[in-house]
């Protein structure tokens, strides 16, 4: 009897078959058409001199010319500089703020979380419009006035090769920490109280608890944020596109912007496709690297 029942049950579960495909049908079609096909297509286009009517196969030419392009390497360097300057600082700021929020009352925690998250809600275009004015090169410009308080001379923030990258970096510091703070705080609240109790018995102080309990416990969170931020940072170029256009003298041309320009300004689709695949490869390698060297004792 029991065996028979189990058989029937099993058949019922297998009956889901057609239903299963029905439920995922739309998702699969959308995926096949707008993700899978474009990826395959990108590979093909990257070996072509793309023309709307009749592309020609040119082998590895797009890749070769990319590797010989000074501008490409400059854009990679810019992207790396931007990432190295923004990601660690943003993570450190988020971590510190989350630690500071922790002892406060629940309603204050919520209020601060909401405040820090607000810039994430505003559109990137709106924020770039505002920051453009904050960086007004005139002496009356807000940022110039601010540094004037400390005795510094006014600068042409977005217009000089020295400061344009820094300007984008400062903007990122002040508008991209919202999510990380919330994620860190959730992880902090999830640390088992008994660790602290044991540390208290040993007479450990705040800094010792921070270093020996909090930092190791939050390692998976930090790794997650690090990997996702680096991946995001390597693709980012909206602020550069809207605020500096990649200039002056390509000082803020990120690799994402270079690909966009090649594709939609110069209509060199083949070159853009080749460069985007190189970017994908770089991102994959860096992510693997981070998991391998930082994720050694992280459990999932």
């Amino acid at each position, binding site marked *: 009897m029991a065996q028979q029942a189990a058989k029937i049950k099993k058949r019922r579960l297998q009956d889901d078959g057609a239903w299963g495909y029905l439920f995922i049908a739309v998702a699969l079609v959308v995926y096949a058409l707008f993700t899978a096909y474009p990826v395959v297509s990108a590979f093909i286009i990257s070996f072509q001199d793309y023309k709307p009517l009749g592309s020609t196969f040119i082998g590895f030419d797009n890749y070769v010319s990319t590797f010989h392009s000074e501008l490409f390497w400059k854009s990679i360097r810019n992207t790396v500089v931007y990432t190295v300057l923004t990601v660690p600082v943003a993570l450190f700021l988020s971590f510190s703020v989350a630690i500071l929020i922790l002892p406060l009352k629940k309603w204050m925690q919520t209020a601060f979380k909401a405040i820090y998250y607000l810039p994430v809600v505003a559109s990137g275009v709106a924020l770039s419009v505002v920051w453009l004015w*904050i960086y007004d090169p005139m002496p009356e410009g807000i940022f110039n006035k601010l540094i004037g308080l400390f005795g510094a001379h006014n600068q042409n923030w977005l217009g000089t090769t020295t400061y344009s990258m820094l300007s984008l970096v400062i903007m990122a510091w002040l508008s991209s920490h919202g999510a990380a703070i919330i994620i860190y705080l959730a992880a902090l609240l999830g640390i088992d109280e008994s660790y602290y109790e044991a540390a208290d018995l040993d007479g450990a102080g705040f800094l010792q608890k921070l270093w020996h309990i909090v930092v190791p416990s939050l390692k998976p969170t930090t790794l997650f944020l690090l990997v996702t931020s680096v991946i995001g940072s390597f693709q980012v170029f909206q602020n550069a596109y809207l605020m500096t256009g990649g200039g002056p003298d390509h000082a803020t041309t990120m690799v994402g912007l270079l690909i966009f320009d090649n594709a939609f300004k110069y209509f060199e689709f083949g070159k853009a496709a080749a460069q985007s695949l190189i970017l994908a490869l770089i991102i994959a390698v860096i992510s693997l690297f981070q998991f391998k060297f930082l994720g050694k004792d992280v459990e999932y």
Partner: protein
Amino acid sequence: MALYSNHTRRPAARNVRNTAIIVLLVLFALATLFPIYFMVISSFGDPVEAGAVSYQLWPSKITLASFKFFFDYSEYSYRWILNSLIVAGSIMITNVLFASAAGFAFSKLRFKGRSVLFTVLLCAMMIPYQVTQVPLYILVVNVFHLQNTYTALIMPSLVTVYNIFLAKQFMGSIPTEILESAKVEGCNPWQIYWRIILPLSKTVLAVMAILTFMDSWNTFFWPLLVTNTMDMQTIQVGLKNFRFANTTYLAPMMAGATISALPMFILFFSLQRYFLEGVTVGAVKG
């Protein structure tokens, strides 16, 4: 006890510490909020050219003339907001429907190739969007000839892998026993999905709806690529065009920025809980 000492014997010490913390947090909050504050305050200024403007951190007068200036710039200014609403609204609805359906199938139904298909879907999250952008543009514009249509704006985002993942993660936590007993009672998978899974997933679907709406409202590059007349542009693209056409007008530019951000602020303040929850929902077991 906890990371922080409670200072049980000296409440004064605790108060001093908490005050110091709050001061630090408020300072950082001021720096974070300043651009938004500056945007809103400046939008109430007169629509005059920047040469005559001195920046004010407190409005000396409040006028809506700059908002009028922004809307007068193009006869389609209102249409941009409407377009954004249509596009973001449609994408929100289709994502909730199709992502919840796919999430249900991947977490609770058995069919051949289920885990393989799901893995293939997840791979998409590792591909930078630069890779798909060019072929997607060629497909939509050159092959389907959909340039300048709502279809082009909506179709590629009908359902995102991220949302399917989100739905699957949540629905996986619904006990299978409930579904088994519904099956014994004679429910087919559609009824299980509609009557049991959807009502139980209300919160996660609300989070998904809000975050999806916000993302598509704020999307800039795709609408920039596939629209070429003002009447089909979204508010983000419209704002960019307005900016390039009026580079010296501070207050109207800020008015435009305020208009583009305002619906999100209203949504955020009324549904804040879902926004903040949404951040951690995606990060758990990322």
